């Protein structure tokens, strides 16, 4: 196969015509280091609190549901209420992340919480969010030992605990945080509302293969948000 590689690259270089590859590549190398950003829509040009409101508005428009709670201590109650409201079992498969494990689940003893990946038998999952993008109401989920990807896709209902301080305006702001956090994870999942399809006569149906419901518990935390 390396013959194929050489031939493809040779065809590409021939198309460019004569010239010094090194000089030519310097421009691209420089751009790769600079990572220029394109136009960021003006709709995200607003104060942090208003950005959180925009996120909520956009996420709801995508058929996600959002509960806003005052602090992390209120999350178990909000989750239990949501499950009762939706007639769902009081059993959660949760991401084994410190942020989720630290929540006061003991306040709601009727809730059964287990941690780990999903094998397809779980009805409800609960995960953290790395960030959320207000521009389009999109969650940014990062895979890792504390957040198995199967939790985002296999269960019928996906509950996401999002801290308001993690809401950014644009995807680019999310990327900047991710770069600060270290190497690229195996998967970055941008999730905008529940799974959907319009493959049958162009009528939109939720819950094609992924979750039928996406529920976001938004925790107001810190810096006046």
């Amino acid at each position, binding site marked *: *196969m*390396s013959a*194929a*590689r050489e031939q*493809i*690259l040779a*065809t*590409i*270089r021939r*198309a*460019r*015509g004569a010239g010094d590859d090194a000089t030519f*590549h310097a421009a*691209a190398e420089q*751009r*790769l280091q600079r*990572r220029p*950003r*394109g*136009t960021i*829509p*003006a709709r995200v040009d607003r104060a942090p609190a208003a950005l959180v409101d925009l996120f909520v508005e*956009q996420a709801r428009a*995508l058929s996600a549901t959002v509960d806003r709670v005052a602090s992390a201590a209120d999350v178990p109650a909000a989750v239990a209420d949501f499950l009762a409201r939706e007639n769902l079992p009081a059993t959660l498969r949760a991401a084994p992340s410190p942020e989720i494990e630290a929540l006061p689940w003991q306040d709601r003893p009727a809730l059964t919480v287990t941690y780990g990946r999903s094998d*397809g038998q779980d009805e409800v999952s609960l995960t953290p969010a790395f960030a959320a993008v207000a521009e*389009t109401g*999109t969650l940014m989920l990062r*895979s*890792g*030992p504390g957040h*198995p*990807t*199967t939790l985002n*896709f*296999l269960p019928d209902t996906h509950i996401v605990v999002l801290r308001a301080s993690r809401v950014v305006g644009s*995807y*680019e702001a999310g*990327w900047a945080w991710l770069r600060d956090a270290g190497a*690229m994870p*195996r*998967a*970055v*999942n*941008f*999730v*905008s*509302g529940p*799974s*959907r*399809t*319009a*493959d*049958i*006569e*162009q009528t939109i*149906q939720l*819950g*094609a*293969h*992924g979750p039928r419901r996406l529920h976001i518990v938004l925790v107001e935390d810190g810096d006046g948000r």
Partner: protein
Amino acid sequence: MEATSRTFKDNARRALVEPDLQQALARMKAGFVVNRAAAVARLPEFDALRDEARAIKNHTLAHLDFYLERFEQAVTAQGGHVHWCRTAEEARRTILEICRSVDAKMVTKGKSMIGEEIAINDYLAANGITPVETDLGEYIIQLRHEPPSHIIAPAIHVTKKQVADSFYAAHTNLDAARKLEEPRALVDEARAMLRQRYLDADVGITGANFLIAETGSTVIVTNEGNGDLTQTLPKIHIVTASLEKVVPTLEDASTILRVLARSATGQEFSAYTTFSTGPRRAEDLDGPGQFHVVLLDNGRSALLGTELQDILRCIRCGACMNHCPVYGAVGGHAYGWVYPGPMGAVLTPTLIGVEEASDLPNASTFCGRCEEVCPMRIPLPKLMRHYRERAFDKGLTPPLPRLALALWAFLARRPRLYQALTAIKVRVLGALGRKRGRFHAIPFAGGWTRHRDMPAPEGRTFQRLWDEAGGAR
């Protein structure tokens, strides 16, 4: 798949009188076209983003060798593999070898136009491996043994009644008396049928909307979540991608993503946009153990530096076909191969030869809607015109149009003669047609007047009127 682009005219004639298809095409115009317009209206920056998206791709294509090598380095650094393939055959063999390395029996597939281009399903099946399409539209057409008729809505030509019939025929383990009248019931049944397949599959194959040179990531954009289940659950994830999918950075992909979903379905962002980078990490609890990228050329590198290079900016949104009056009249299957509509009319002759597909670049009214809505500003009419010329040069144009063009060319080079003859023609036609205002039939032009009337001229040519009005004063 066997191309039937040669018989485009017959395909189109049949499609025009197919009631189910015509109904589906009417729905498409009400859906995609209206939704795109609304999404564009909500984003004042849309046109600026289109310019930036075009610039990103032009820059990448100008430095394609650099970015592909960077992409390969980054994938390898994460523990993945890049397989360079010149042809569809090389890509098929590579995929088969990877599947055989784990003795795969079943392969799940996310939607991939490259998968269609290299006809991977038939090849795997012929080699004893069962391919299962998991995108709902792809699953439906797989059951119907059909190719897709649209690049983002593969089963757009199928009615819910036809879907139900396919499900009754295929899902024989279910109660034959069950009701499948509504889309909801059909979606739920497909969801239930495919669930176990994701878990049982040995290998998952997806396409890619982007390859990121900076990080070695591959990106898929979906709404159903099937692509993510396909690539997360099996032991091996194979990504099939053509080489022009590469962009430099995560920021560049973000810019293009802002115009992609809006142009395609009119969504601001698709439900799932996933950046995959290498196999599962040592401490991860899930994810594929192996990550392979099958990088396909299939004639694309030869377009660089030619007037056809612009088509390599295509991001497969489908806006050109959604807005095309010809696609809207005959649907995707008439085009006879994998890619229909205006982008297909350019890509098909490129990939399978102008000899096989010389009718496709002619299947256009040149109204220019495709170029107007293309998020990457690809001059599709110009590229189709290029193929018309190439077909003419190769002598693929039929004798009568050739003769007519030769005659017109002879006259067009002799302005006085041209003006004299057109003046006579206009006067005669004007006199003959004055009463009715139009002609239902004209000798030697039956092919044109069979489907529409020819308006009768006013009696004087444009040039004459121009002179009388004082010309270019």
